[in-house]
């Protein structure tokens, strides 16, 4: 018994030390709320029944749009001479991960001849897009250069998957509209609703401003969901416009979003957890997803570091391994459109996110002296 206690103490002491060195804490939201959702969901205790999940679908559309706005603002407010290079670096890193996961999944699916209601190409593309998003590491005054650059790359590497996600959703959806029209519709809706928000936010204050911000987010998510286009893309366009528009709109929105950020992420993760239905297909997709995502992130990070200024090539990819919630959000968006056939994708992406977070505890580098 003492030896077990001693071992536990050593492990926790190691984790504490490594956390103090800048490692991500083991209790990332993904690791806490996904399993909680799984326990509460229909496959678990059924406290969150299928009917309740149906109602949460409404909230998910709004959460997706909100996440899009976050990324749009983060991408739109990047300033400085290196923005172009950082954008290119992020796009390269995301593209490498998409190719790595998507390509490997496609080849394996064909080799396994796995039955799937969604075409192999779209399964591969969806998994690639989910894999390419990264969580931005937190940055403070003591953070080193690589960590700062990694945070910006992680903000920007969500842009490509969200744009391509609009295309993928259109292809998966049963509508007979043209893909480009769907993408244009998402962007157009986002910009029009953002313009309306821009006219309102700065003139209002207090609870009234809360109403307008909340209404704008609901409208972004609702309009996109109604048309079966991408709420993430609509939100991204809106966030980008607010960042470019004259005045302080993006600050107003960001301040309000910070208040609802945690609850929204919790709802998203619990819903994703509750939607999990373990299946053979899901487990088979999970393994290559995890392996090739890690490979893609490390390779992509290494390539991106060639374009990003002053970054240790070995570190950038490791910083980008934590997946955050965008990948899970996109998987849920696909589930909204494709319904049951997308369940293995949600399982693979969610399980992959949990394991990637665990992996991040080990591989995220300690900070270098500033």
């Amino acid at each position: 018994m003492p030896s077990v206690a001693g071992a536990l103490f050593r492990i926790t002491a190691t984790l504490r030390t490594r956390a103090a060195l800048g490692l991500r804490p083991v209790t990332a939201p993904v690791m806490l709320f996904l399993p909680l959702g799984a326990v509460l969901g229909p496959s678990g205790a059924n406290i969150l029944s299928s009917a309740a999940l149906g109602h949460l679908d409404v909230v998910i559309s709004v959460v997706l749009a909100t996440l899009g706005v976050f990324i749009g603002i983060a991408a739109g407010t990047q300033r400085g001479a290196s923005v172009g290079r950082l954008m290119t670096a992020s796009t390269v890193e995301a593209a490498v991960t998409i190719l790595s996961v998507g390509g490997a999944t496609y080849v394996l699916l064909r080799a396994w001849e796995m039955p799937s209601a969604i075409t192999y190409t779209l399964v591969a593309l969806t998994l690639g897009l989910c894999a390419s998003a990264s969580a931005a590491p937190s940055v403070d005054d003591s953070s080193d250069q690589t960590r700062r650059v990694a945070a910006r790359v992680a903000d920007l590497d969500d842009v490509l998957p969200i744009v391509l996600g609009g295309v993928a959703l259109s292809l998966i959806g049963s509508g007979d509209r043209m893909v480009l029209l769907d993408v244009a519709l998402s962007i157009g809706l986002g910009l029009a609703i953002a313009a309306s928000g821009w006219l309102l936010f700065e003139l209002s204050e207090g609870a009234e401003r809360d109403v307008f911000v909340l209404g704008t987010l609901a409208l972004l998510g609702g309009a996109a969901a109604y048309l079966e286009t991408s709420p993430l893309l609509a939100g991204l366009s809106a966030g980008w416009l607010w960042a470019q528009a004259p005045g302080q709109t993006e600050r107003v929105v960001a301040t309000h979003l910070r208040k609802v950020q945690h609850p929204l992420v919790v709802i998203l993760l619990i819903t994703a957890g509750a939607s999990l239905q373990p299946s053979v297909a899901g487990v088979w997709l999970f393994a290559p997803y995890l392996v090739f995502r890690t490979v893609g992130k490390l390779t992509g990070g290494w390539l991106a570091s060639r374009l990003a200024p002053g970054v240790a090539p070995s570190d950038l990819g490791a910083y980008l391994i934590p997946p955050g919630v965008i990948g899970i959000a996109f998987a849920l968006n696909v589930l909204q459109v494709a319904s049951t056939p997308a369940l293995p994708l949600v399982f693979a992406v969610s399980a992959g996110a949990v394991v990637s977070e665990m992996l991040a505890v080990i591989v995220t580098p300690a900070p270098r002296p500033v």
Partner: protein
Amino acid sequence: MRQLFALALTIAVVWFVVAGTGIVPNDPRLTALALGFCLIAAALSGELLERFGLPRVTGYLMFGMVCGPYVLNIITRPMARELQLINGLAVVLIAFIAGLEMNIERLRPRLRAMLQLGGISMLGLYIGLFGTFWLTWSWLGLGVDVSLIQKAAIVGVLTTVVASYSPTVTIALITESRASGPLSELTLAVVILADLLLILMFTLVVQFVRYAFGGTGEIGLFVSLSWEIFGSFAFGAGVGALFAFYLRYVGREVAVALVAVCAIIAGVGSQLHIEPLLAALAAGLVVENIAPPRGDMLKEAAERGALPVLVVFFAAAGASLQLDALAVIGWVAIAVSAVRMALIWGSMKVGAKYARIDPAVGDKVWMGMVSQAGVTLGLTLIIAGEYPTWGSRVQTLVVSLIALHQFVGPVLFRAALSRAGEIGKMDAETADV
């Protein structure tokens, strides 16, 4: 000007999405769109009307009515139905805020007068309405071939439903206009008292109706009545105590915790067959009177959280107003409404005099009693479901009355609050603290 432009842009986007694309999606996907549209456009409409001295809630209602299925049809019938989902949560939050505003210590000196006013005015209203409906029976068109006892039962039901007030609208208007003072407190106390009486009276009258129409009365109904009143208070008090404990020892994410508490009361309440309004009121009372939180974090969270809920609640009510019912039975409804208002005015006047309430306040209380809303409609639905022949006629009449009173009531009450100089006093009190 910017706001008008934003309103036009929002309406154009939603019109394009709903009408322009011609897509008929699954119902749940409508909710977020309808919510977003209501939040922005109804809030702007409310603000616009406030500039003309009218209550914001009237603006929200008018927005819902104009954009609803009967006029522009931008909020389609399925969208209006989806918006109703938020009603349960809204009623609970509104009642919780009312509970927070009721400090027993402060109300104690006036409690006797409030009870006297409430009791006398309700008695006068019930007797007056019963007599009126009895005498005008043939004009109401509720059925010719009924026995005397059946007539008494139907008139009893109609009296009970028509006499009801709307605590939700009263509380919403006080919250929205940031009113505070003797008139606000007195009106709030009387409508809540009347709501308790309504539950009691309705249960008794339904028993009588069942007896009159050959059914068997249920002793279980009295048990369920007791459960509905006392169970609601007990459940709400328990939830309130837990919430107070959370506020004291955790005190984080108060707005989210508040919404969660309201969702629990609304969701679990319907499962347990308790009255959510009473339960939420009890929860608010416990938090305010037994374990008040330190600082203003709860009131701030409740007030900030209340506005979006109020906007959607009233816009949904406006979109769901059955204007066709008003068209069918319009003149009868207007006549009944006029009689009801006159009786409220008279009985309140007598009650206020008997209770020795300052005439400056007592003369205006009746103006806060005109509104009617969801609870009234819910009761008529029960009757219409059980007795489709005359019950649906009662329903049409009551729905028309609600349509009228939802517009007249808030305007009158705001005017009363304004004359009493209580609008905006809540902010002044907070500043003083």
